[in-house]
């Protein structure tokens, strides 16, 4: 009896410490916010507020676009990876996880070397009119690259959690592969799609290293935070960060409650 209580006590102490570890920086940030600067940077100062609002909008837009594109790629790719076996699958899966392992600046350089104007696929891309250096699509590309493994791995877990015998039953009842996918697999995958979307969106919003190298302009929130920190000081950087953190928190809480329903 006493042993169990000690066990629970230890658990709750560790759990509390863990939560405290995450919560303290958030609280510290919220405390550090100077209301005057906040109002100035977001509303009253025309120059600063325009920069701040544009950066916020751009970040959200680019992260959203990146997650949508990853979803479109990820749903079929993860299906393929979980439903079919083929030679070299382990290698393919390792390659997909590469962005998790490399420093973000290196990721940025790799993206330039591949998709930049002088990159391997640069000429091909420029035919479609897409240039990634200092452009919206450059930001999206950097975000997609770093979020890629998160989306794929989340969807893979989702596919694996679906009992395959259910799909077999649907086939035997007369549903072809497409019908089965649309009517059975996809609805059961939905929670994982939402989770993958959220996680890769969050990862994209938080990316800075690769974006700095690929597309310093137009400025995303993270680039602007760095810039203001260097040129105007902590107060201004905090004022920007506060809104970003607040916004992310709200989005996460909202979506999590929606998913629970």
């Amino acid at each position, binding site marked *: 009896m006493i042993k169990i209580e000690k066990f629970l006590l230890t658990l709750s102490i560790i759990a509390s410490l863990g939560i405290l570890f995450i919560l303290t920086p958030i609280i510290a940030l919220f405390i550090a916010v100077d209301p005057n600067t906040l109002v100035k940077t977001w509303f009253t100062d025309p120059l600063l507020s325009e920069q701040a609002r544009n950066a916020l909008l751009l970040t959200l837009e680019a992260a959203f676009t990146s997650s949508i594109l990853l979803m479109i790629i990820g749903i079929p790719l993860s299906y393929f990876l979980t439903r079919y076996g083929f030679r070299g699958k382990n290698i393919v899966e390792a390659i997909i996880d590469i962005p998790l392992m490399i420093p973000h600046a290196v990721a940025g350089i790799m993206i330039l070397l591949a998709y930049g104007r002088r990159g391997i696929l640069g000429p091909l891309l420029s035919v479609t009119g897409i240039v990634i250096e200092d452009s919206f699509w450059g930001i999206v590309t950097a975000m997609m690259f770093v979020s890629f493994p998160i989306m794929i791995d989340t969807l893979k877990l989702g596919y694996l959690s679906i*009992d395959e*015998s*259910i799909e*077999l*039953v*649907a*086939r*035997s*009842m*007369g*549903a*072809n*592969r497409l*019908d089965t996918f649309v*009517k*059975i697999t996809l*609805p*059961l995958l939905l929670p994982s799609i939402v989770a993958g979307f959220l996680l890769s969106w969050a990862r994209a919003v938080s990316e800075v290293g690769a974006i700095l190298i690929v597309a310093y302009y137009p400025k995303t929130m993270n680039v602007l935070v760095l810039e203001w920190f260097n040129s105007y000081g902590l107060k201004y950087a905090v004022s920007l960060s506060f809104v970003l953190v607040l916004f992310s928190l709200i989005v996460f809480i909202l979506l999590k409650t929606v998913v629970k329903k």
Partner: protein
Amino acid sequence: MIEIKDLYVELGNFTLKIDNLIINENEYLVVMGPSGVGKTVFLHTLAGFIKPKKGVIRYNNIDLTMEPPEKRGFAIIPQDFGLFPHMTVYENIAFGLVIRKIDRNRIDELVKRYAELMEISHLLHRKPNTLSGGEKQRVALARALIIKPRIILLDEPFSNLDPSLRVKMLGFLKRLRKQLRFTAIHVTHDIIEALELADRIAYIHRGELKGVFTPSEFVNTQYAKPYMNELLLVYKRLKQLGIDNVNIVT
């Protein structure tokens, strides 16, 4: 009539060989054999989920060997019933008809008829995770039978049910067969199920079809020995306990 000839399946180290097997219209064939001998592999090959290396599967002289599962008209009922968890019981039963783009009113009529037949009319709006084992079983049967399949393939359908439910479902299936007439392959390693339901019993051992027997033939084969010994054990024990006349309460 379903005809299986020189079927040969390879899955890693495992091989399944069925030289010759015919299942007649409206026949109830029980496939017996211990665990891991290839009974599920056999059903999955028939259903088209596993491609055989050699051999043919024919239905009334139509070669189905290379047809995809959805073109065979073989409805499978897996061990865990395989109900679609995101659909209601109604939607589960209607699934095959919706896929066939049948008229909504006709679907409604059929679903209600089959639900009544299976005594699950009161469950139509429920989700599968709220059902008991026996209820799930009957939903799975309704969903399979409503499409009038050429055959239904039942993979150890009673293995997840407790004894009282099993006895009930046995009676239920027997009645259903009289009412609907359908062809079935029923996989089990339970001798009681086999004797109760089978028109004929096929015995598979270590990936090979050993023979097809009538129930009365089967009980006298070497394959039935372990099962019969088990029954005999119970019989002897009951006698020892002085119980020669058990009153069965139903």
